[in-house]
């Protein structure tokens, strides 16, 4: 018994424990990115803000129900209101009003993702580990796409469940494919946001500049949509060719257009307010081209990120 030395040797000892093969590093990177983001309180606030349309609709529908059940006269008004409600449009509005908060969330998650690594030239740390560029980029990308996907899906499912349970007789379930369609467009939106942010983040070495640029692009293209909307509204009759398509030529325009196309609705004023014309009724673009544009933009930005990520800065 006595040959065990009473005092341990705390000097450096080697680690010979298990080492996983490369291929699982992207989840490590993604998990780390999400953990850092979740620490920011603003993110939680934005999550609720992004679902504000659904929340408001829930409150509106709840009160409409209360009023009608209390006095029969109200029932008449409620039936009229319910008839007017086009359910797919509620999801369209829920989805489109979520895009701006989504953009901000994407920036919070991803603006610094590669930019900070560029500044701290942490690329040396990553790529000197058994983790190659593919995993690095995919890890960073998932770190943005996954949270956005979850933040958008949860309110949609809650609203769908509430609608399906209480408003079946008002034709909520008329379009049986409504939920599956939403479950198609939401991942596309997540891919779209994540790819752009990853691409832009890799072009800078400061999160601040990356966010400023992306915000700049967003507002400039948005201004463009505003202009087109204005022109479309003022020339009520026929819609000159470019306007119908250029209307969707902004960051959230592409997504809103894709959502309209997938759900297959012309769109209507929010909250079931009666109004004809106006921007919300610009006809939906064709499905394939708008999705093609969305995916093309995503691929382009991911390629930008791929080219920009280099362990050693080779200067000509």
């Amino acid at each position, binding site marked *: 018994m006595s040959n065990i030395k009473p005092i341990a040797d705390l000097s*450096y000892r*080697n680690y010979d*424990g*298990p080492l*996983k*093969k490369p291929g699982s590093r992207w989840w*490590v990177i993604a998990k780390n990115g999400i953990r850092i983001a979740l620490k920011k309180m603003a993110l939680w606030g934005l999550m609720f803000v992004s679902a504000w349309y659904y929340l408001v609709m829930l409150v509106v529908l709840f009160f409409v129900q209360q009023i009608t059940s209390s006095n029969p006269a109200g029932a008449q008004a409620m039936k009229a209101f319910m008839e007017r409600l086009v359910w797919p449009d509620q999801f369209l509005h829920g989805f489109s009003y979520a895009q701006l908060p989504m953009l901000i969330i994407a920036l919070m998650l991803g603006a610094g993702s590669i930019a900070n690594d560029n500044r701290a030239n942490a690329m040396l740390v990553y790529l000197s580990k058994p983790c190659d560029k593919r995993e690095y980029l995919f890890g960073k990308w998932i770190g943005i796409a996954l949270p956005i996907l979850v933040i958008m899906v949860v309110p949609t499912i809650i609203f769908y469940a509430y609608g399906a349970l209480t408003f079946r007789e008002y034709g909520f379930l008329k379009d049986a494919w409504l939920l599956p369609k939403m479950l198609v467009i939401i991942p596309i939106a997540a891919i779209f946001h994540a790819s752009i942010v990853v691409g832009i983040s890799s072009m800078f070495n400061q999160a601040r500049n990356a966010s400023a640029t992306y915000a700049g692009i967003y507002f400039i293209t948005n201004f463009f949509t505003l202009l087109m909307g204005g022109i479309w509204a003022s020339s009520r009759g026929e819609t000159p060719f470019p306007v119908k398509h250029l209307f969707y030529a902004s960051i959230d325009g592409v997504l809103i257009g894709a959502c309209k196309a997938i759900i297959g609705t012309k769109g209507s004023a929010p909250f079931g307010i009666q109004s004809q014309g106006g921007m919300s009724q610009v006809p939906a673009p064709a499905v394939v081209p708008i999705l093609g544009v969305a995916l093309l933009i995503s691929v382009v930005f991911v390629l930008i990120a791929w080219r920009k990520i280099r362990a050693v800065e080779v200067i000509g």
Partner: protein
Amino acid sequence: MTAVGFVSYAGELSGMPPAEALRRAHEVLEYCGLGEARYRNVETYSTGMKQRIKLAQALVHGPKLLLLDEPTNGLDPRGREEMLDLVRSVSHGRGVNVIVSSHLLPDIERVCDRVIVVIKGKLRTAGTIKDLKKLAGQPADVELREPNVAFANMLMEKGLTVTPPKGNIYRVQSELPPEELLRVVQRTALESGAQVRGFETAVRTLEEVFLEALTA
């Protein structure tokens, strides 16, 4: 990101399971002398501590080969000493082979056993530092309290070759064994009124080895 977070993240990136990575992160931070600052945010670290955490994240997954690029860059004297001791303690007798690249040759002498000199992409000299520093003919370096010309001349009269002094250090060449040579040197010093403050077998500094390799 805290130090522990960063090092365990680096561990996971190397393939370690999360639990192992965290345990090992604490251990490695302790070795690198960052034990008490392990929960602090890495951005608040001083340059010295940043150099040490770089070493920590390189060691976390128990590498067999460690590549260090200018490990003592930007460190103050005490920081450099600690870093050099750290590198020595990690490598000698621990099965970790270390390659250090640095412009500070005395640092290299302190840490490394072997040296490779690469000039313009080609390998010029290689070998253990002990051999490279050996000087043919075992000359001795005699350090006087202050330079003394008489002392040098007297030595030469006694058949010893003396190179011109660098500061107050004279290099004396002879076939005598060191203790005999010392006696001769000290007797000459007494005669010439000089005071000998140091007597060592002369060695080439690594810098001389480098410069020689350059001109070869």
